[in-house]
């Protein structure tokens, strides 16, 4: 119960910051995706997928595309980001996971667009979108992954 409350609080804070501040920057950076990656690194693939699904639905509700598209993209991204937990603890591993998760999320979204006939998700638009999302996700992960990890530890010592 407390874990759900923590997840909801962090996601809603990220959503407000995203809309009020980050979405104006070029790219734009995707703070919710970074939060999903952070929960996946702290708790594993299962938690990453569930957090991703919930975060994606929040995004979908205020977006102009079909409901469930970002939910699917974030869920897959959260699952991917939570993999390779038991490897040796390299400080770079969370950043690699963040980059991989971002690339997977954008690609999943673009593939759905292809299936749905979305005129925006073209091959030409895919590469710049991957580059921008991966870049920002890795940069933001440096701060957000340790922050969420400490929140999760505090909740469940």
């Amino acid at each position, binding site marked *: 119960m407390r874990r759900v409350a923590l997840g909801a609080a962090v996601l809603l804070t990220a*959503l*407000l*910051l*995203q*809309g*009020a*501040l*980050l*979405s*104006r920057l070029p*790219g*734009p950076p*995707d703070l919710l995706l970074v939060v999903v990656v952070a929960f996946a690194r702290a708790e594993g*693939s*299962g938690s990453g*997928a*569930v957090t*991703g*699904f919930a975060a*994606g*639905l*929040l*995004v*979908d*509700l*205020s*977006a*102009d*595309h*079909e*409901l*469930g*598209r*970002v*939910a*699917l*993209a974030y*869920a*897959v991204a959260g*699952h991917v980001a939570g993999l390779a937990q038991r490897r040796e603890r390299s400080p770079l591993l969370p950043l690699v996971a963040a980059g991989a998760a971002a690339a997977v*999320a*954008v690609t999943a*979204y*673009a593939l*759905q*667009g292809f299936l*749905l006939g*979305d*005129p*925006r*998700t*073209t091959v*030409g*638009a895919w590469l*710049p*979108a991957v580059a*921008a*999302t991966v870049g920002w996700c890795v940069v933001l992960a440096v701060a957000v992954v340790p922050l969420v990890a400490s929140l999760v530890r505090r909740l469940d010592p």
Partner: protein
Amino acid sequence: MRRGRPLLLLLLAALTLTALDARGGGGFDGVRRVADTAIGPAQAAVSSALGRDPDPDVAALEAEIARLTAELSRSGGLQRRVTELDRLLRLTRAGSYPTVPAQVTGAGSAFGFGATVAIDAGSRDGVREGQTVLDGDGLVGRTVRVGPYTSTVLLLTDPGFSAGARLTREGTVGLARGDGRLLTYELVEGGRVSVGDGLLTTGSDTFVPGVPVGRVTSVRAEPGALVTTAVVEPFVDLASLDLVGVVTEPPRGTPRVPLPLPR
């Protein structure tokens, strides 16, 4: 195997939602409205706490300036020609439309695909789907998703955008389409277009006629092709959009103009 099972269920749920929503019918409109009512004001509060919201009077004045500048740019040397064409094409006079000022709050589409922006005006301000959005330089786009407090604007360069437009000099009617970063303007065989020509919207039942769209920068005329395509650079600087105006009342009369038949 076990580890993948929750993911599979979630994917199935997401795909089901997408399929249901893609079928149309607006079954999720209620949920979307509730979400916007909950999030929209909170986002506006955070935005103004971060010192990004202008004074409402300033916003209204800037919207007024935007509207007047748009009107001015239509007049000048082109006034006589425009009036004549307007009368000919039975367009309603591009008079004063009620305009709601709105602040661009950020990008509107996921992962930066497409060209949309979110604005802080919604159905409570009189905004409806398909309305014209403009600023001081000309056409910005059209509203696509409208919540009670926020809306999404499809910019004129988005691949999903298209609108009727005519050349200021020739008066030829064609179709302006978004092309990612610029616009393309297609006109049927026999229509003449040259570099430097300006484009104005022709208008429809919800779209305002006579709004400056952009200027032709190059023409691709392939011999034997039915359609001549021109590349158009928008008048509006889409990278630095700030305050825009949403025209909340459709033009009166029947300004819909049929495409001219090829000769």
